[in-house]
């Protein structure tokens, strides 16, 4: 139906060729970021700073792959919603859980009783 052979040639070819460069660039950036991350952990900066940078970099890579390799920015909004809902629920729930299970609640090793 709407996906006839001629259609592909006309519209998609150009689109796909444009994307090609985006992909190559992204791949290069991803490789570079991974290298940076590797170096970063050994740098003598305060923990929190490195931690924050690492998380941001990983978020950046994450978004890069999702948006371009997985075509989310090119694709229908409904797909972003499907995935995003899962992401948000998972992230929210497990961040909350991480805070809920604090170390202070762990019983001291003395076996209860004796």
């Amino acid at each position, binding site marked *: 139906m709407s*996906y006839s052979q001629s259609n*592909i040639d006309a519209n998609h070819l150009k689109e*796909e060729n444009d994307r090609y460069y985006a992909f190559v660039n992204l791949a290069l950036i991803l490789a570079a970021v991974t290298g940076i991350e590797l170096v970063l952990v050994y740098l003598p900066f305060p923990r929190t700073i490195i931690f924050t940078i690492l998380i941001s970099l990983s978020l950046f890579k994450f978004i890069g792959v999702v948006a*371009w390799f997985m075509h989310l920015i090119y694709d*229908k909004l409904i797909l972003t919603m499907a995935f995003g809902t899962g992401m948000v629920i998972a992230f929210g729930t497990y961040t909350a859980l991480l805070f809920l*299970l604090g170390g202070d609640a762990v019983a001291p090793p003395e076996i209860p009783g004796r």
Partner: protein
Amino acid sequence: MSQEVAHDDSHHNLMVKNKKLLMWLFLGSDCMFFGTLISTHLIYRKLYPEEFDPTLLFSLELTSFSTFILLMSSFLMALSVSAMHKGEIKSFRRNVIGVIFFGLIFLGCQVYEFAHFVHEGLTLSTGTFGSTFYLMTGTHGVHVAIGVFWLISMLFYSKGGNMEAHKNAVDVETAGLYWHFVDIVWIVIFTVVYLIEFIA
């Protein structure tokens, strides 16, 4: 064949292929799967920071290498999806072979890593660290293995000219989405399980 298309696409209100939507929903759901696994690991790391010192065992070089490999496989996957959309079956096959090859390297690294860790005394029942680490990375590894298996069967299927852009592009794209997802899960694991352990 045209009838299948007729059925599959009869009236898609949003013009998103069913299979693709299914895969995205699955990935949304998979976020919860991996969320549970990763958070279990992090929770126990937080509760028992002293239980185990992974920096003595982890090799950042190896893990960075396999991270790099996986990222590049993702790149090739993107290319092969693109090729499929353009109807360039040959190029598609070339790229997919690359993806499979990289995927196997990743799996090899993981097998090596596991074997090494077990040899060094970190087993499934070594405290909570062993349990959470192996189940999490193992589940990821199984995802990679399934992906490899899937791509291999696709490769075979495409051999006799069975694949056509208008018909199978969505299949390749779906497999591609899956593969990329496995990659982004690893991006997260790489940071929160490996890298941050090494912050000085």
